[in-house]
């Protein structure tokens, strides 16, 4: 991994190399949006078809917890952005703790999500054929919660990946691998984290605020 510090032969300058890496990341992030888009379309379609059931089902998702989770991710994004700022200005010592805080907030998000899943599972709110919740009609209610598990599950997976990336970045930052001249991994890791945050900003009103 040491080699990526140096300038590759096919780039003229270090800046050009960093910019190419950023462009690649932006294109990748766009494909991530494409990955979530069908889940969003499915949601809107079935919300049109099962309007009443979706509202009944939505009332069983904790809006306050969802809001807390949103604030956690947004705050985590702030720390990721501050870490990038610190790396750019060569404040290498500050980078590792800032990234670590961002990662820990990500872990807090996962814990809250886990607790929420557990509570739903106890009530019989499970996806697909395991659905056993009497308070909302099976038709529509099952769809809502299956989509809820699919969408938030896929998002949760992305959060877990982001936390792992941040753990590695924090360790490498702690070891002094990054400087004002070379910190592309921090920039790219933060970009990924912000996209995961952005996706959640849309998931939050779709599943947590349906009343």
């Amino acid at each position, binding site marked *: 991994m040491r080699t990526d510090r140096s300038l590759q032969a096919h780039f003229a300058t270090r800046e050009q190399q960093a910019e190419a890496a950023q462009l690649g990341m932006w294109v990748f992030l766009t494909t991530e949006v494409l990955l979530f888009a069908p889940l969003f*379309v499915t949601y809107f379609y079935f919300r049109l078809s099962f309007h009443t059931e979706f509202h009944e089902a939505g009332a069983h998702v904790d809006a306050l917890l969802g809001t807390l989770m949103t604030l956690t991710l947004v705050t985590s994004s702030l720390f990721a*952005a501050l870490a990038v700022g610190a790396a750019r200005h060569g404040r290498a010592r500050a980078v590792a703790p800032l990234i670590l805080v961002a990662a820990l907030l990500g872990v807090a998000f996962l814990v809250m999500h886990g607790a929420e899943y557990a509570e739903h599972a106890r009530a019989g709110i499970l996806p697909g054929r395991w659905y056993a919740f009497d308070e909302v009609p099976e038709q529509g209610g099952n769809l809502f919660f299956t989509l809820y598990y699919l969408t938030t599950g896929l998002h949760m997976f992305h959060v877990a990946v982001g936390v792992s990336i941040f753990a590695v970045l924090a360790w490498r930052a702690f070891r002094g691998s990054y400087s004002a001249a070379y910190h592309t991994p921090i920039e790219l890791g933060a970009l990924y984290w912000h996209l995961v945050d952005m996706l959640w900003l849309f998931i939050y009103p779709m599943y947590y605020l349906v009343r």
Partner: protein
Amino acid sequence: MAEPMRRVSNRAYLLAWIGLVALTALTYALAHVPLGGWSLAIALMIAAAKAIVVMLIFMHLLEQAGGRRLAMPAGLVFVGLLMALSLLDLATRWPPTAPPGGSASEDATGGAPEGPTAE
């Protein structure tokens, strides 16, 4: 060659965060106001505003130049088109051409398909 790069400052990060928290609080508050069919549309518009703040400030779209400035917005335009046109198709179908509403839960309910509830 390249114009001097404007850097987003820590102050901008903090202001963006305050804005995001405020908009989240607003979304939560509006969820308790009966707005009927508009509630989701308004909540999603606030989400879009938040996403734009995240992209411009946290993701430094403000300071990008050339292709990097265009990649994400252009991608979003096309994803938006795909989603809008798919939904336009689905929303304007009349019942006989719509897939049976219960197709996903047919097995569990003994296969009694009801059409999607009108509205």
